[in-house]
C-alpha cells in the first residue's frame, strides 16, 4: 500500500509535475495532429452525402466531438475540484484552471458549429432546441468559473471558491438538461433534433470517433501546456524554477 501511494503522490507537487508535463505535451500534440488528418478525410471526403441534408451535415464531425468534449472536460474539472477541496493540493486546483479555457472553447465551437448547421438544416441559426440551449447554459457555467477565479485576488481562495462552484455546477448540469428538455417538449419546439438527423453509416461513426479522440488528445496537450504556464506563474519564485533556465524542455 505505501509504495503505490508514494508513486501517485510523487507527481502531486507542481515542481515535480512540471517536467513530466513538458515531456508529455509533444506526444499528445503529435497524436492529435495525426488523428485529425484521417478523421477529417473520412468525414469530409469518404463519408457519403446525407439523404436529407446533402453535404451540409458534414459539420457534425466538428460539432459532435466539440459537444462531447465540452461536457467531458467539465466532468474532469469536477473531478480535480473534488480532489483540490478534499486534499487541499495546489496542483489539482491548477488542473481545473488549466482545463477551463479549453472546455469553454469546445463549448463555443459546439454552439457556433451547431448554429451553422441549423441554418441549412431547418432554416434558422438558433432553434432553441434542448441540446443547444443546455450547451449555451454550459458555456455560462464555464464563464462563471473563469470570471470567479479571475475576480478573487488571493489565488488560494480563488482556487477553493471556484472548486466549490464547479462542484455545485456539475450537480446541477443534469437537472438543467432535464428541465430544458422538458421545457422544449412542452412548447413543441423544433421537431428536428440534432441527434435524429443522420442515420449513422459506419464510416460516419468512425470519423466522428476519430475526431473525438483527436479533440481529446488536443485538449490534453493544451491543458498540460497551460498548467505549466500556471505553475510558473504561481511558483516562479521558487528555487527549482530558477534552475529551469539552465535546463532545456
Amino acid at each position, binding site marked *: 500500500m505505501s509504495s503505490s501511494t508514494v508513486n501517485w503522490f510523487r507527481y502531486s507537487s507542481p515542481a515535480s509535475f512540471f517536467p513530466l508535463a513538458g515531456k508529455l505535451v509533444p506526444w499528445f500534440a503529435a497524436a492529435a495532429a495525426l488523428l485529425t488528418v484521417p478523421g477529417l478525410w473520412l468525414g469530409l471526403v469518404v463519408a457519403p452525402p446525407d439523404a436529407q441534408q446533402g453535404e451540409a451535415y458534414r459539420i457534425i464531425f466538428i460539432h459532435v466531438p466539440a459537444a462531447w468534449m465540452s461536457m467531458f472536460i467539465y466532468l474532469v474539472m469536477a473531478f480535480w475540484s473534488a480532489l483540490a477541496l478534499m486534499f*487541499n493540493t495546489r496542483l489539482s486546483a491548477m488542473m481545473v484552471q488549466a482545463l477551463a479555457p479549453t472546455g469553454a472553447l469546445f463549448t463555443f465551437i459546439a454552439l457556433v458549429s451547431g448554429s451553422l448547421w441549423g441554418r441549412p438544416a431547418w432554416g434558422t441559426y438558433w432553434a432553441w432546441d434542448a441540446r443547444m440551449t443546455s450547451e449555451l447554459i454550459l458555456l455560462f457555467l464555464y464563464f462563471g468559473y473563469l470570471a470567479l477565479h479571475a475576480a478573487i*485576488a*488571493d*489565488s*488560494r481562495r480563488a482556487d477553493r471558491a471556484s472548486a466549490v462552484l464547479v462542484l455545485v455546477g456539475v450537480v446541477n448540469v443534469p437537472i438543467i438538461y432535464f428541465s430544458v428538455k422538458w421545457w422544449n417538449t412542452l412548447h413543441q419546439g423544433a421537431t428536428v433534433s440534432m441527434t435524429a438527423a443522420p442515420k449513422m453509416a459506419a464510416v460516419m461513426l468512425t470519423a466522428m470517433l476519430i475526431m473525438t479522440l483527436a479533440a481529446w488528445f488536443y485538449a490534453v496537450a493544451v491543458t498540460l501546456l497551460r498548467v505549466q504556464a500556471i505553475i510558473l506563474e*504561481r511558483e516562479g519564485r521558487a528555487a527549482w524554477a530558477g534552475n529551469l533556465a539552465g535546463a532545456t524542455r
Partner: protein
Amino acid sequence: MLVAEDLAAQRGNALLFEGVQFSLRPGAAMFVSGPNGSGKTTLLRIAAGLTRALRGRLVWDGSAVDPFASILRAVTLFIGHATALKDELTAEENLASLVSLHGAPAEAESLSAALSEWSLARQRRLPARALSQGQRRRVALARLRLLARPLWILDEPLTALDAAGVAALREVVGEHLASGGMAVIATHQEFAPVGGTSLSLRLQ
C-alpha cells in the same frame, strides 16, 4: 495548552512569516508585536482557527486542530480588529447577541453589570451607530467576562481605548490568567497585565 509548530503563512503570493513556534500554558499570555504588515493579524487568525497556515500545525491539548475545528471553537474567544457590532442594535442587544452566539445565556443583569464595568451604563440603550469608536471597542470587550473560555485571542484590543479602558482590560486579562486562562494578544503598545506569565513574540 496551545502549541504551534513551524507555522508559515502567506498573503496573496508573498510569504509573511515562517518557522513560527510557541507553547502557551495555562496562566500565560503571549504578546505578538511587529511592524505593520508583518503578519500579526494572520498569526492570530491561524491561532483562532480562522485561517489555514501555509505550513506547520496547531495543537490544542495534544491533538492537532484544523481551521474551524469544533474543539477549537468551543475553547476560543476571538476578538478581532472589527468589533462585530451591528449598527441597528443597541449596545445591550449587541452584547446579548454576541454572548448567545457563543452558546452562553444572556441574562439582563449580567449584561447590565458587564456594560457598567466598562463604563457604558448610560449607553446601554443607544444604537451602536451612535457610539464612538472607543465605546464600540468597550462593548466588544465586555463579553470577555461573560463567556468562560480558556483561550482568548485579541487582535489590537487597545485600539481607540482611553487610559481607563486600558486599565480595565489589564485587570480583566490579569484575572483570566490568574484563573488558568491563556491569551494571545497582538498589540503595538506596551501592555502589562496584572499577574500571569508573559511571553513575547516579535514578527519581522
